[in-house]
C-alpha cells in the first residue's frame, strides 16, 4: 500500500493561519477602544474564535493560541519564542495588530501529530 505524502500539505501553512487570525481579531475588537472591563472578554473571544477556525482546517495538528492585548501608553512590549520541535512539520505564526488605543499580539503554534 503506497502512501503519498505531499510535503506542502502536511506542514503548517502560516499564511493561511495569518489570515484567519487577522479576521478573528477584526471581528472581536475591530471597532472598540481599550476598556479594562472588556479586555478579559476580548482576549478569550479572540483565542476561542481562532481555535475554532483553525480546527475547521481539518489538519492533523495540536494548536496553542496565545493573545495579549495592551493599552497604548508608549510602553514597549517584546515577545520571543523558542521551540524544540520538528521544523519540517511544525510551525508558528505571530500577528501584530493595532488600533488607536491598543495593541494586540496573537501567536499560533501548531504541533503535528502525524
Amino acid at each position, binding site marked *: 500500500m503506497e502512501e503519498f505524502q505531499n510535503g506542502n500539505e502536511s506542514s503548517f501553512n502560516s499564511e493561511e493561519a495569518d489570515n484567519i487570525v487577522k479576521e478573528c481579531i477584526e471581528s472581536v475588537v475591530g471597532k472598540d477602544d*481599550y476598556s*479594562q472591563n472588556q*479586555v*478579559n472578554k*476580548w*482576549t*478569550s473571544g479572540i*483565542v*476561542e474564535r*481562532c*481555535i475554532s477556525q*483553525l*480546527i475547521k482546517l481539518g489538519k492533523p495538528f*495540536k*494548536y*496553542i*493560541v*496565545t*493573545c*495579549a*492585548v*495592551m*493599552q*497604548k*501608553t*508608549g*510602553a*514597549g*512590549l*517584546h*515577545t*520571543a*519564542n*523558542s*521551540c*524544540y*520541535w*520538528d521544523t519540517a512539520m*511544525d510551525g*508558528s505564526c505571530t500577528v501584530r495588530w493595532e488600533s488607536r488605543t491598543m495593541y494586540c499580539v496573537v*501567536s499560533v*503554534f501548531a*504541533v503535528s*501529530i502525524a
Partner: protein
Amino acid sequence: MQGSDAYRIRPSHQDKFKPAIVKECIREIMREQLSGVQYDPENVQELSKSLGDCIKDKVKTLGLDRYKLVVQVVIGEQRGQGVMMSLKCLWDADIDNYAEDVFKNDSLFCLVAVFGSYYY
C-alpha cells in the same frame, strides 16, 4: 526525535510533563537573568531571545523525552498600562500541559510560558 519506543502512545506517570517542576525551573532562570535589570529598548530584544533559549535548554534537561516544547517569552515596560493575556489550546489534555510564571520589577514585567506537547 528517536523512533525507539514507538509502540508507546502515552507517557508513564513519571514521564509526564509536570507543570510544578517546570515552573520552578522558569522562576529560577528569570530571577537570575532579570533581577535588577532595567527596561532598555535596545537590549530587550536580545534579552528576550536569550531568555527563551536558556529556558528551553534547561527544560530539555528535565528528561521530558518525546515532548515537543514551545517557550514563549513576553517582556514589557512598566508604565501603568493595562495588559491582558490569555491562551487556549487544542491538545490531549491528559498528557499535554503547560507551565507559566511572571516576574515583575519596577521597570519591567516578564511572562514566560512553556508548553509541552507529546509526540506519539
